[in-house]
């Protein structure tokens, strides 16, 4: 059986021909059985997003992943054009800030 993760990756590849793509299964961070495919975080960098607001980009992804959305619990979307991606240091949002607890 094809995994949900694999299906998401192949549908996004086909729809957006991304220059960078990362599909992360974050289910282990949630209260679900081991091996679950319930929570995903998707980062897509593509020229297809040129001139489109975030709302439009997310609509496109939601539409592309319509069938998957019906079975998974959560989908976090991070969409960038190549220049936007470079400008933000090639990092998707949500890495918690350093609170000064460095060991050095």
């Amino acid at each position, binding site marked *: 059986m094809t995994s949900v993760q694999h299906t998401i990756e192949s549908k996004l590849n086909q729809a957006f021909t991304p220059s960078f793509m990362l599909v992360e299964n974050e289910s282990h961070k949630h209260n679900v059985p081991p091996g679950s495919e319930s929570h995903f975080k998707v980062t897509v960098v593509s020229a297809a997003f040129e001139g489109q607001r*975030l*709302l439009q980009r*997310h*609509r496109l992804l939601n539409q592309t992943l*319509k069938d998957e*959305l019906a079975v998974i619990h*959560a989908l*976090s*979307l*991070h969409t960038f054009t190549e220049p936007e991606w470079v400008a933000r240091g090639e990092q998707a949002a949500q890495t918690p800030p350093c609170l000064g607890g460095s060991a050095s």
Partner: protein
Amino acid sequence: MDVLEKIKEQVESNPVIIYMKGTPGMPMCGFSSRTVDALKQCEREFAYVNVIADPEVFEHLPRFADWPTFPQVYIGGELIGGCDITLEMHASGELKTLVQETVDNAA
């Protein structure tokens, strides 16, 4: 009243409204929690609907603005987006400006 009429009435009569799982004081989903936190930092009042307590809205809201997931944030009667977009706009400062302008103009 038809549920879509009810939702339309809610988003049009409240300058800022969030449809979330749980309440601002007790969110029941991590995405709703982070989104409502961003709204709280905009220093204006906002309305909320707990979709868990209103199964009819829970079922029909996705087709209201053709948006499949929760939470959903509406500002000035328009869908702004879900958690990721709201947080992105919060990080850039855009959210606060939009919320304050919309609320202040509606007053």
